Structure formats: C-alpha cells, structure tokens
C-alpha cells in the first residue's frame, strides 16, 4: 500500500468514527428527551388526579371497606354508597384540615391589666 492510499484510508476511518460518535450523541439526546417527556407526562397525570381530588389511594380504600361491609349484604344500595362515603370522607378531611388550621392560628389571649393592689 502506497503512503497516499494509507493516508486516505486513515481519513476515511476517522470520518467513520466521527459519524459513529455523532450518531451515538444523537441517540443519547433522544433517549434523555423521551425520558424527560415521559416523566413529566406521568407526573402531570398524577398531579391532575390529585388536584381534582381523585386520590387513587383513598378511592381504593373506600372501595375495599364497602366491599367488606355493606356492599356484600345489599348489592342494590352499593351503587350509591361509594359516592356518599366519598363525600363523607371529603367532609371529614375538610373538617380536620379546618380544625388544624384554626389551631395553628389560635386567637390571641385577652389582655389583662395590672393595677396597684
């Protein structure tokens, strides 16, 4: 192989390596971008659910409780009970939050006056 051909092959090899690196870089960026979008979408869904009050954990618990108790005996009433139970749970939670808030902003004690005895 003459020296000119050697140099040419070397350049071609370097070009191939550069191209490979660029492709790998593009792939990496794409993977990162897709991961971020998926992450944001997932949390977006969770956020919307929580913000609208549809906590999946609360929903499951109330269902289980109903299945264990009244639902098993009276299947006809069960269709309306989850809604009532949910409303009750919401009201209780609201009352609890209100109580905690009120406790946190407890009214200032009445002032007293000290005068000569």
């Amino acid at each position: 192989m003459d020296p000119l051909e050697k140099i040419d092959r070397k350049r071609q090899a370097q070009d191939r390596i550069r191209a490979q690196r660029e492709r790998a870089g593009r792939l990496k960026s794409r993977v990162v971008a897709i991961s971020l979008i998926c992450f944001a979408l997932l949390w977006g869904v969770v956020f919307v659910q929580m913000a609208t009050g549809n906590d999946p954990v609360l929903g499951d618990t109330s269902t289980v409780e109903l299945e264990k108790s009244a639902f098993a005996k009276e299947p006809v009433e069960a269709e309306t009970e989850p809604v009532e139970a949910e409303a009750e749970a919401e009201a209780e939670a609201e009352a609890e939050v209100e109580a905690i808030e009120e406790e946190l902003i407890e009214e200032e004690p009445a002032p007293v006056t000290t005068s000569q005895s």
Partner: protein
Amino acid sequence: MSTEAHRRFDCFGGTATIHIRATSTEDGEKAADVARTSLLDAHRRLSRFSDESELTRLNDDPRWEVPATPLMRALADAVHSAGSRSGGLVDATLLDGIERAGYRYSLDGEPSISLSEALASRAERAPGAPHPDRLWRSIGVDEAGGTVIRPPGVKIDSGGIAKGLVADLAAEELRGQRTYAVDCCGDIRIGGCAGLERRVRVDDPFGGGPVHELKLRDGAVATSGIGRRCWVAPDGGGAHHILDPASGEPAFTGIVQATALAPTALLAEIYAKAALLAGPAGRWLPHGGVLVRDGGEVDVIAAKQPLTELAAAA
C-alpha cells in the same frame, strides 16, 4: 376552636379576673368557675376584715402554736419568705401600724382623697427601711404538725402577699389548660401549654390610660402602689396602706407605683412592694418592670435576669 372563658368578680377588696382557654369552650367555662370558687374561698379565709376568717382567728389566738389549714400555713410561710427575700422591707406583720394609720376596715365606699392630694400633703420623701424587730422572722410553720408558730400578738396582714400566693395556687390547678391568667387584683399569674403571649397593661396610678404594655408567655406580674386607697390621717396629712416598716407610717418614697415581673406572682408582689418602698434609688426589679414616680414619670426597667431561666429553676 375553643374560646377563652372570662370571669370578673369582687375579691380581696378589689376586682379579680380569670381568663382560661381549655381544649373545649365547655371545659374552659368549668375551669373558670372552679378557679373563681377557689379565689372567693381563699378571700373568705384570709380576709382580716372578717371576724370569722381563719386569719382573724389566728391573729387573735393566744397560743404560740395554732392549728392551721394548708392555705394558712402557705400564707405564714410566704410572710416569712417575703421578709427574708426583701431584707425586711416587705413586712406583713405591721397590722397594728396599718390600723393606727386609719386602715382598720375595708375602705371600699369610704371617703378618700386623690393620690395627687395625698402627695401634695406630704413634703418629705425618704426610702423605707426594715423594722428593727423584724417580727416576720418569728413566724414559722410546722408542716408535719399542721400548725403556724408565732408569738401571741404578732399579727399577719394578708395584703398583697395573699393575692400573689392565691394567684399562684390557682394557676397551679390550671397548668394543663391552653392559656390562662389569674388576676388577683393586680397580682397576675400567666401561662398555658399553648405558649401564647398575653399582653399586660400597666395601669396609670393617676387615673389616665395605661402607662406601659408588657408581654408575658409564662410568669407573673404584680403592681404595688399607694394611689388606690388614700385617706386623710388624724394629723391632717395624706395616708395610704403601704407602711415604711421602720417608721410604721405611710411611705412616701418618690415612687407611687411599682410593677414587677417574676416567675411567680408571690415573688412579683415582693419585688414590686420592695421597689416601691426602696424609692427611685432601689434595685428591686431583677426581671424588669415599670416604676411611676411622684410626678407621673414612667421608668421602664430592663430585666437583668431572663424570666424563663428563673422560672425553670424555681
């Protein structure tokens, strides 16, 4: 949220107030009623103006050692403690001198003169000093035997000491409440597990608006002054109920009112009275307070010892 229960009633020759917030409004109201009953009961037993009171019976008893209730023993102990802590300035054995000065009966509704008139009638100003006999030293308590020991004829004047003591005793029963204040006619014990600050206004002895405002979370404040009960003495000059122990005469020291902060109401009462009797040069307010001079000038005294540290140690 529970609201604070309030009670205001005549007691100890003045007006007592109680403020309690419990975990529920109903509990607060109940606790306030109990505290009110305690204060009225203590007043009935410690009044020197009633022949039937335990104090009057003790003062008239010819024995050296007299059986006494825990409340009376606590008062006797407080009298000794007041004398000891104030170097004899706060002497609750001067009852004869007070009666000689004209304060034999409760002066509620009796004719009186204003503080300004009383001050104008007396030109001299001098700090008070301990009585040389220091009779308060002779008062002791035998807790095991349930008696008060003192020489016959040595009489105890319940005065401000009883107010501070009773405020402390009532407050002890309220430790678990969210907020409380027991005000025995100016001797006030404040506290509560909620840890909230309560504002305390210091009254103007000359009848104006409050001269100062303090804030207290856990502790006590008491005010001693000469303005509330002033009358004309047999010599024509002004008189009041706080005597200079040394002379046995009403004290005109240059200070007309002293307000003291302390961990307990009893201690605050002792500091306030000592500060009043010591005059402007005295140094009797270690936890801070307010002094009002003859001319109405107000001195706010900064605390040298933090109240909380001493409360923990007390």
